């Protein structure tokens, strides 16, 4: 490992770089256990049906809110769980291990919907939104992507101009998670507020001129809510500006950095869930007079995937720990995102392969996992964008 010499007076990074502790704390382990039991007990029995009916998991969101899972890494003073990023990642992982739609609903809400309010909002914005967000009674959405601005997210076309103490917003957003549910409270959008100036503005659902479009017909994540948004002279008070004017670019880059940790946890979870299913199936399924798990070709797949998961998990947890320690985690988060997205796709594919024809049938969870995996190499920054981020950090 390449160890950077810590700056004078900063002994902490050196110590924690050397002291590698692979054990979860008792609290983290208990939170992981809670999420695992909840995913197995409550999510698993309904996951297939929610996916098939493309139904948003309102009941599960309510339960997760009551259990304190909808605002895990935020301070208790705002109604959050007061837990760390690693605990949060553990919960996302356990959910995605069973169902990605539920996983992303919680992850996008926490990392994309709630984060900008918590990190950039003033006290009155936080007082207005944080308690409902942390309780899971209100969902937050983050509107960055536009028809002309995806990977090139700074190419924002949506405009907001100040008029009589109000922002007047015109434009469109694309692929926005959690924006159109019955409990969606607002979308925080990036908008051009002047020449070369991007700012974030809170637009509450129900604002005249702000229309939430029909949900997309997607390859996967069927029970998660994803919609196009349009703004046609939508007016919100000037105070809905998030943080200082013109800070939008920095703010969304920071938001995406954090989101990458939870999306990485989704990839680890999905891969683990695919492995769980594949292993159980391989032990059960007989061919040529024995369990297919006894064939070397199957064993090699299981062994390889389990090894990749172990490595990807460590990278993901490291990014979470770096964030918790207040260190720069951008590089690790991008590496984790790149690694886990690809792994999820591969693990789901191998799991389907191990299931043979049954893997192509919706009764088997791996069929859904296969459809759910692909977005993980696209959303929250494509693989190619992660490579750009990583290469830049390397100084290439």
């Amino acid at each position, binding site marked *: 490992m390449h160890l950077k010499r810590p700056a004078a007076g900063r002994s902490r990074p050196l110590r924690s770089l050397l002291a590698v502790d692979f054990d979860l704390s*008792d609290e983290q382990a*208990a*939170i992981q256990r*809670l999420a695992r039991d*909840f995913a197995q007990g409550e999510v698993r029995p309904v996951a297939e049906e929610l996916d098939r009916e493309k139904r948003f998991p309102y009941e599960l969101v309510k339960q997760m809110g009551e259990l*304190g899972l909808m605002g895990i890494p935020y301070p208790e003073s705002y109604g959050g769980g*007061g837990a760390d990023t690693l605990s949060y990642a553990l919960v996302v992982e356990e959910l995605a291990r069973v169902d990605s739609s539920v996983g992303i609903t919680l992850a996008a809400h926490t990392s994309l919907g709630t984060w900008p309010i918590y990190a950039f909002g003033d006290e009155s914005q936080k007082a207005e939104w944080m308690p409902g967000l942390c309780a899971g009674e209100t969902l937050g959405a983050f509107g960055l992507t536009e028809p002309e601005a995806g990977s090139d997210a700074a190419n924002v076309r949506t405009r907001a101009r100040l008029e009589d103490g109000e922002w007047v917003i015109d434009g469109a957003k694309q692929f926005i998670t959690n924006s159109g549910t019955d409990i969606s409270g607002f979308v925080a959008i990036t908008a051009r507020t002047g020449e070369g100036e991007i700012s974030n503005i809170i637009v509450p659902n129900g604002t005249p001129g702000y229309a939430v479009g029909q949900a997309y017909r997607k390859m996967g994540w069927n029970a998660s809510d994803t919609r196009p948004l349009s703004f046609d002279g939508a007016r919100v008070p000037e105070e809905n500006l998030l943080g200082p004017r013109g800070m939008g670019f920095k703010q969304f880059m920071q938001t995406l950095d954090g989101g990458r940790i939870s999306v990485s946890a989704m990839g680890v979870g999905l891969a683990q869930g695919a492995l769980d299913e594949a292993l159980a199936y391989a032990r059960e399924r007989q061919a040529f007079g024995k369990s297919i798990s006894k064939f070397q070709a199957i064993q090699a797949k299981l062994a390889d995937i389990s090894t990749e998961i172990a490595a990807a998990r460590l990278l993901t947890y490291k990014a979470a720990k770096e964030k918790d320690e207040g260190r720069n985690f951008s590089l690790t988060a991008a590496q984790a995102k790149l690694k886990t997205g690809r792994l999820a796709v591969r693990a789901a594919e191998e799991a389907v392969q191990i299931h043979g024809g049954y893997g192509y049938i919706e009764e088997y969870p791996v069929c859904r996992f296969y459809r759910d995996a692909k977005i993980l190499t696209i959303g929250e920054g494509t693989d190619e964008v992660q490579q750009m981020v990583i290469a830049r950090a390397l100084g290439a």
Partner: protein
Amino acid sequence: MKICVLVKEVPDAAVEKRIDQSSKRIDRSGEKNLNPFDTHAIEAAMQVKEGGVVDVEEVVAVTMGPESAFRALHKAVSLGADRSIHLTDDALAGSDCCATGYALAKILEEESPDLVLLGQQSDDGECYTMGAIVADHLRMPSLTQVIKMDVEEGKLRCERQAEYGYDTVEIQLPAVISVGDAINEPRYPSLKAIMGAKKKQLDTKGIADAGIEADRVGEGGSRTSVLSINPPPAKQAGEIIEDEDTNETVGKIVSWLEERKLLA
């Protein structure tokens, strides 16, 4: 009213059970969890507390186990217990059921609860007898495999699962009740409760603190010794009834069930 709940840390259900042939004990390494049956006992205590029929001042979780067993207590308090007691001492290692029951009873004596609840079995040892042993030491009446429990002033009305059907029994308090998993649906601990678990009082005690006689516990103080340990016999093959004539098939199934007194 004061309720004590006996809890135990056991290997997680997902861990394949192994016997350590040299010590003839269960290999308890690997991931652990609170004994699932005990979560039903805690839930039963919470339902009494929240039910409002009687006033419950305190629910106290008690465990005997190695140092790591405090995690079972943290889980117990995250599920609602008010405080917990950890009996741990090198002298206790290797205690059999009777020795364990004696040691737990000594802790309970000090607490003098009105009701002692526990799971009907532990997921590892599965002796099913802890309730009875503890009750005997405490000179309290005891019921096992209780699947319904209504509390009234000074007594309980319980249904216990019998081999065929249910017994409805009234029992005077104080009493020791072991519960089956059909009694309730345990709640999940909330994240806040998990985060707050460390803040609840946990008393760690050794045998001297509890007045436990050293020669009545541990491997030396246990009067049973395991001679050998074997896997259970393989299950008998089921009976397959070919469905040729459906009326006949139904008749066969009914008589099969009747033979086993499974039809009311």
